[in-house]
């Protein structure tokens, strides 16, 4: 099939369908797209061509001697383009010796008439005709085609009518570029304030322009008019307004009109958009009543996007009524200056509102995550491992690799029930008395060869996505849970790093990198390892490997293992201490575990960390660090590393203020000083204070990022959080694509050492930089989706509980930030953060009776630096300080178009009476008993090969990046995304 230039321009989304394969794009058509639709769509086209799954090719017809047609005198551009494409199609048909029929798809009636029957075997038909004849079953494309047609027709009609203009026109590109150069305009990315999407948006300055203009803060864009049709995420050009028109940002909570805006900040208006970052949006159609109120023009419907930051979108469709209760994906086509809202078209349906699957699909689309099952072509590349045909170590590999099966005691420590074990450890004493520490990582790159189908798919996914109740794997389960997973008792390929350490000082003497074969002796879980470390050998019965041994060999083996774990912990402590001296930060998040059963959430339980966690983490950090050193040495311009830039000092001001309220001083000048002062800032009566301060420090930091060493100066490689000069991700290739790249780099580095030729499958600096951007992007999406899915579950948890009666909905909260009309409260019990108003919609303020219970009364609020006072007209007053404990009631605010949100209401200014410790005990008790029940049940379920719903995925986003497989109760750790600010700039190392 060969699409006409016009089809490529207007119906590109249809061509993007994975079912449509074997499309030949003519160079003429591509160039027409490039000229008329701009870079964005052209890039989409390029990606489509690059994507091996689509089987599309570009034919450079203008460079082909027999296809080139000069443009005739007086011939219009369009006519010439159609003629060229048709000519090339005919040529191609003859080139294939008239065996393959060619279909040229065009929207031009004249062309159909003119060329339709000119050459036999080359059919010229319209797109609609094509879809009807060739893809009668592909309903989605038909709908899409319809909706595009309709929205195009609308647009044409509209442009004929001459409306009054709603927005000023954008300036032409040359003017914008000249303006940016001269400093008259400023370029930046538009960020809409989620809570005041109608009014406030900020433009974050990009790169050089911030230095030139001398502006430190972002620029405020006040109101829709000034925003001038730009949408969240667009790269816009802004003109600053004169100083007397500057406005302040509102600091009040919620939609109450901001009474006391802060001091004026630079304010501007958008004069042009450089790059539109429109994506697919999830929207909800208005309910029936609303449709009627929208009036006569019922075919054009205003739909509300799920994301608050996106303006309403005008859709013309006849299916509005049928789509009422669904979440729907739409795309924005254009935003004319004559129209209040952008117009778009309907793409597909996701699911019912309020339905778990629908809501999860919504989260995925909003984060641009697409997870389709692995295709057959991809699965064909996979190794086989069945009981009949078990996977074996091949003899060639045996020769190539170092065999550690006999010599090393290798074991893994993971969460209970974990399936994808990608790291194992070993430690042994050498003959010369020194110690040898080994980290063995699953050799994924052996199975995932560069540029294979599975590699391309993994690159697109970039990471495994963990949602609160499920996960979307980066690699098929045959790899992730079987052949690559370093399970106990079976031979596996690994990539190993082994250090020779001095026996007493643990100084690193030598290091060895290479491919190995290992057989993991024990697959321990954290709790068991901790017990062993504590000298508690009763746990042995829980370890399957020991079960079948006789008493004597068991004793010997156990001692061997005990020694290894003990030594390992010792080494880890030592390395950690060394890193601490350089200023490594320990920034724990809340570890919360959600218990689920059959879609209902039992409980949300915070979890305690163990020392073994830290031991494993430390070994992984060490491995990552040494790999980073190695690959940087070998490939100074194209190594993938991970950096964590030092934070801006301004961001710490809030932290310092808060700490001051409690009488602590936080020194933020260096990571060392920060770590020390955070350790000191410990309130013996209230451990939450220290935790909150740490979490605020985390918020103030920038995100850690992947980057290519060729695009950054060496001083910038530093990892602030870990206090290491070079760092990368190497230890979880099953879950992260970055690790796969690092593995390939390391392998190339080793073969370079051995003077072997390097395979040409490394990325150049530029490609790598682009890839890093993609991976960073995907990681952010993964974090957001995880956060949003957790919130979804939290809401579902509280939704069916009546806040008035249910005892669990009342909890103890800590105030961690003060706003003009309320406070932000953190609930340690559930790890929830939210806002609590001190002034309600009727203008009444809170007041507390002597026993602590609160009521709403008329009065006023007064905000100070560290406290907020509410005074009623009766003269009573109540003051809330930072870090005060209060009792809050949790309820859910339902919303049709958006996600539900948690609402907090202060019901008493006294701490909640139920002591925390008791509560924890109670809940952990509950955990254990439930656990047993669920273990048995899920076993049965697994046998029945049913969909296992009782799995909660441990959030793996930890600094040591352990894999948390699908397990019975796995844990949701570090919900630091639920952290203090709604901007989720969570901190990952």
């Amino acid at each position, binding site marked *: 099939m060969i699409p006409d230039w016009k089809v490529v321009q207007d119906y590109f989304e249809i061509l993007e369908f994975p079912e449509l394969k074997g499309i030949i794009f003519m160079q003429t058509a591509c160039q027409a797209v*490039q000229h008329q639709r*701009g870079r964005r769509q052209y890039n989409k086209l*390029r990606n489509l061509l690059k994507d091996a799954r689509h089987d599309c090719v*570009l034919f*450079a017809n*203008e460079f082909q001697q027999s296809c080139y047609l000069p443009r005739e005198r007086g011939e219009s551009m369009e006519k010439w383009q159609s003629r060229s494409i048709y000519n090339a199609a005919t040529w191609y048909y003859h080139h294939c010796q008239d065996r393959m029929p060619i279909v040229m798809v065009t929207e031009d009636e004249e062309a159909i008439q003119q060329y339709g029957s000119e050459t036999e075997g080359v059919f010229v038909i319209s797109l609609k005709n094509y879809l009807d004849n060739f893809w009668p079953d592909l309903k989605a494309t038909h709908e899409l085609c319809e909706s595009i047609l309709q929205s195009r027709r609308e647009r044409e009609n509209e442009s004929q009518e001459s409306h009054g203009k709603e927005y000023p026109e954008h300036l032409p590109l040359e003017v914008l570029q000249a303006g940016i150069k001269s400093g008259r305009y400023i370029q930046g990315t538009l960020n809409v304030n989620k809570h005041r999407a109608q009014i406030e948006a900020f433009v974050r300055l990009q790169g050089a322009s911030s230095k030139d203009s001398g502006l430190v803060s972002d620029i405020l864009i006040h109101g829709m008019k000034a925003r001038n049709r730009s949408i969240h995420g667009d790269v816009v050009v802004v003109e600053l307004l004169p100083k007397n028109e500057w406005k302040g940002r509102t600091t009040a909570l919620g939609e109450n009109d901001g009474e006391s805006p802060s001091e004026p900040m630079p304010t501007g208006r958008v004069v042009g958009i450089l790059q539109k970052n429109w994506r697919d949006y999830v929207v909800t159609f208005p309910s029936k009543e609303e449709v009627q109120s929208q009036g006569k023009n019922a075919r054009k419907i205003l739909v509300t996007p799920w994301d608050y930051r996106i303006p309403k979108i005008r859709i013309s469709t006849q299916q509005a009524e049928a789509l009422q209760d669904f979440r729907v994906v739409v795309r924005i086509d254009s935003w004319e200056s004559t129209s209040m809202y952008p117009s778009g078209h309907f793409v597909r349906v996701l699911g019912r509102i309020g339905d778990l699957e629908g809501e999860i699909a919504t989260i995925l689309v909003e984060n641009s995550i697409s997870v389709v099952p692995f295709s057959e072509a991809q699965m064909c590349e996979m190794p086989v491992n069945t009981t009949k045909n078990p996977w074996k170590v091949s003899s060639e590999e045996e020769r190539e690799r170092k065999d550690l099966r006999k010599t090393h005691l290798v074991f893994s420590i993971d969460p209970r029930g974990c399936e994808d074990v990608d790291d194992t450890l070993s430690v042994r004493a050498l003959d010369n008395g020194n110690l040898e520490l080994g980290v063995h990582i699953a050799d994924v790159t052996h199975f995932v060869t560069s540029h294979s189908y599975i590699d391309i798919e993994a690159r697109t996914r970039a990471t495994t996505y963990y949602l609160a109740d499920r996960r979307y794997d980066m690699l098929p389960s045959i790899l992730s849970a079987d052949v690559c997973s370093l399970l106990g008792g079976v031979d596996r390929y690994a990539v190993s790093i082994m250090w020779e350490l001095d026996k007493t000082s643990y100084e690193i003497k030598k290091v060895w990198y290479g491919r190995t074969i290992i057989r993991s002796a024990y697959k321990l879980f954290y709790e068991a390892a901790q017990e062993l470390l504590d000298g508690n050998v009763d746990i042995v019965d829980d370890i399957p490997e020991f079960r079948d041994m006789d008493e004597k060999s068991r004793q010997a083996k156990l001692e061997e293992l005990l020694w290894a774990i003990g030594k390992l912990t010792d080494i880890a402590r030592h390395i950690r201490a060394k890193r601490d001296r350089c200023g490594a930060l320990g920034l724990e998040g809340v570890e919360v575990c959600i218990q689920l059963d059959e879609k209902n959430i039992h409980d949300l339980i915070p979890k305690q960390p163990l020392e073994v966690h830290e031991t494993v983490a430390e070994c992984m950090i060490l491995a990552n660090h040494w790999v980073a050193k190695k690959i940087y040495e070998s490939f100074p311009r194209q190594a993938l590393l991970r950096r964590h830039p030092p934070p801006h000092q301004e961001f710490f001001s809030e932290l310092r203020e808060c700490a001051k309220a409690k009488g602590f001083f936080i020194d933020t000048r260096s990571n060392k000083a920060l770590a020390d002062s955070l350790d000191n800032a410990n309130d013996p009566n209230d451990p939450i204070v220290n935790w909150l301060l740490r979490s605020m420090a985390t918020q103030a930091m920038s995100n850690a990022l992947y980057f290519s060493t060729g695009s950054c100066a060496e001083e910038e490689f530093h990892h602030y959080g870990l206090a290491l000069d070079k760092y990368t991700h190497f230890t979880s290739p099953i879950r992260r694509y970055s690790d796969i790249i690092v593995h390939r780099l390391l392998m190339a580095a080793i073969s370079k050492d051995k003077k072997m030729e390097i395979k040409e499958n490394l990325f150049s600096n530029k490609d790598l930089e682009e890839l890093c951007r993609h991976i960073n992007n995907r990681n952010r999406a993964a974090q957001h989706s995880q956060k949003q899915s957790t919130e979804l579950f939290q809401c579902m948890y509280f939704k069916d509980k009546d806040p008035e009666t249910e005892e669990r909905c009342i909890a103890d909260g800590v105030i961690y930030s003060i706003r003009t009309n309320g406070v932000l409260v953190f609930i340690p019990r559930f790890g929830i953060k939210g806002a609590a108003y001190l002034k309600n919609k009727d203008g009444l303020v809170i007041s507390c009776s002597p026993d602590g219970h609160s009521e709403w009364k008329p009065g006023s609020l007064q905000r100070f630096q560290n406290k907020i006072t509410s005074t009623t007209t009766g003269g009573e007053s109540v003051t809330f300080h930072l870090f005060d404990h209060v009792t809050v009631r949790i309820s859910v605010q339902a919303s049709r178009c958006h996600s539900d949100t948690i609402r907090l209401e202060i019901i008493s200014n006294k701490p909640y009476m139920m002591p925390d410790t008791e509560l924890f005990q109670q809940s952990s008790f509950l955990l254990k008993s439930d656990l047993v029940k669920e273990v048995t049940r899920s076993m049965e379920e697994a046998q029945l090969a049913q969909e296992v719903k009782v799995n909660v995925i441990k959030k793996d986003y930890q600094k040591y990046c352990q894999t948390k497989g699908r397990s019975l109760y796995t844990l949701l750790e570090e919900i630091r995304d639920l952290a203090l600010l709604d901007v989720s700039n969570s901190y990952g190392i």
Partner: protein
Amino acid sequence: MAGLELLSDQGYRVDGRRAGELRKIQARMGVFAQADGSAYIEQGNTKALAVVYGPHEIRGSRARALPDRALVNCQYSSATFSTGERKRRPHGDRKSCEMGLQLRQTFEAAVLTQLHPRSQIDIYVQVLQADGGTYAACVNAATLAVLDAGIPMRDFVCACSAGFVDGTALADLSHVEEAAGGPQLALALLPSSGQIALLEMDARLHEDQLEQVLETAAQAARDVHTLLDRVVRQHVQEASILLGD
């Protein structure tokens, strides 16, 4: 529309060439009767004319004469109509002075000047149409003209430019590619010995990539050599036929 794509994903350049491909080269020798040697060359749309006088006695001040070898005097000029915008280019502006100097260096390296002490060789080059690679076209034209004049040379001097885009080296840049602002390298080569007569580079290029670009330029220069060699042989054949009559 954002910047032009110089090298498409399929590996085509803007004018449809592959990365290492040259533009079409056509040349003729002996285009003027009154000069000692002359040649005309077209490299794609770049057209250049070269005329050689000499070796003859030093004109003007005798003091310039060199006791052991001939003086090579090069002058470069480009026609008013040679570029997109019509512009008068007076003799002796900086650009043509520089180009003249470069040509002189190139040919001092190639011509066996020590055979003609105290004499002068004049090489005049005029660019009729400039579409990138003017230096290369001038050198190639001048080589042919010098050969036409029968002045002994060590070897042909073949020149070609090369650029670097998206990790790939491009040979024989056109004007569009030059204007894009990437690094550009001009190389004049003595093909049989592989010696470099002149190497010039503007803009920054990482040293890791220099080798690749240099190799591309050298390969292109060798390709030019084959073409020029063919032109010379054909010219000699024609001339011998004429003489034979």
